[in-house]
């Protein structure tokens, strides 16, 4: 019997917080950690994740084309095909369509920049995850090193939910690696960014295992 497909949705009302970069990096991190096969799904009409994947030489993780209408059936088929994790990128918005995608999630990861605007905007994304009864966590993105603002943002966010201890810092290698279809772990596996992504994946995986266990305990 194969394991059930676990679906991770990256959602945030704000644009430019690094959703697509995170989706690509974590998809690759899952494969590199031996947790594949992983599949990426791009629901953002901007198509940046799909463009990144097209520019990529490696075949893994896979990318599955879909429409919103087909999404439930597509996820079912991907699970039956043996994929273990699906990573869904979404556009920056709060709409019924985003809600429909979140509905399919096992876990929602909410990237947040450590800025007052981003912190104010995070509430509506959290509401959707909570309305749909989904486990979620925040990850601080594009953080400046040694910035007090990052610590303050993590403290503020922790009042609303779990915050990833692994922070995604503002480094050139995130953007540079994305330009030719790679991720930070693939351009330099010993870089600090690569460590961040490996740690973030372990955190997300751990959180998903916790919620799966909690769900099973509830059923039992």
């Amino acid at each position, binding site marked *: 019997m194969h394991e059930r497909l676990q679906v991770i949705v990256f959602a945030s009302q704000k644009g430019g917080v690094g959703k697509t970069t995170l989706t690509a990096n974590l998809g690759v991190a899952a494969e590199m950690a031996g947790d594949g096969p992983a599949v990426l799904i791009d629901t953002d009409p901007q198509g940046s994740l799909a463009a990144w994947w097209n520019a*990529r030489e490696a075949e893994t993780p896979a990318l599955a084309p879909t429409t919103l209408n087909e999404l439930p059936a597509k996820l079912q088929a991907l699970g039956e095909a043996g994929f273990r994790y699906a990573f869904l990128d979404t556009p920056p918005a709060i709409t019924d369509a985003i809600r429909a995608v979140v509905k399919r999630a096992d876990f929602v990861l909410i990237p947040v920049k450590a800025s007052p605007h981003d912190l104010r905007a995070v509430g509506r994304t959290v509401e959707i995850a909570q309305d749909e009864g989904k486990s979620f966590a925040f990850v601080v993105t594009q953080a400046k090193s040694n910035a007090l603002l990052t610590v303050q943002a993590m403290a503020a966010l922790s009042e609303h939910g779990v915050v990833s201890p692994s922070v995604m810092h503002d480094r050139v290698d995130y953007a540079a690696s994305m330009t030719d279809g790679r991720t930070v772990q693939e351009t330099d596996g010993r870089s600090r960014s690569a460590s961040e992504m490996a740690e973030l994946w372990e955190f997300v995986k751990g959180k998903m295992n916790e919620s799966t266990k909690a769900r099973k305990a509830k059923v039992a």
Partner: protein
Amino acid sequence: MKKPAALSSGLVAIKGSAAPAHDMPTRSASLAPTPGPDPEGGLQPLNFRVGAEFRREFKTYAAAHDLKLNELLRRSFEAYRKQHGD
């Protein structure tokens, strides 16, 4: 050891063909509307007559560029003033 996924045709993309979900509402339409400038004293009517051809072209251009008529007029006026250095 991880096992490879069993792939059927159309389940996953092939290189060069990957595309996003086409039925997701566009980003601009889905974001909360941003309030426009609130001119002092609110909007006032400005009535004058123009030729039929100009009227058609003006309205067609505004519609094609997703602009309100008053916004196109305002931008044209700004551009005109800039061009004439005042």
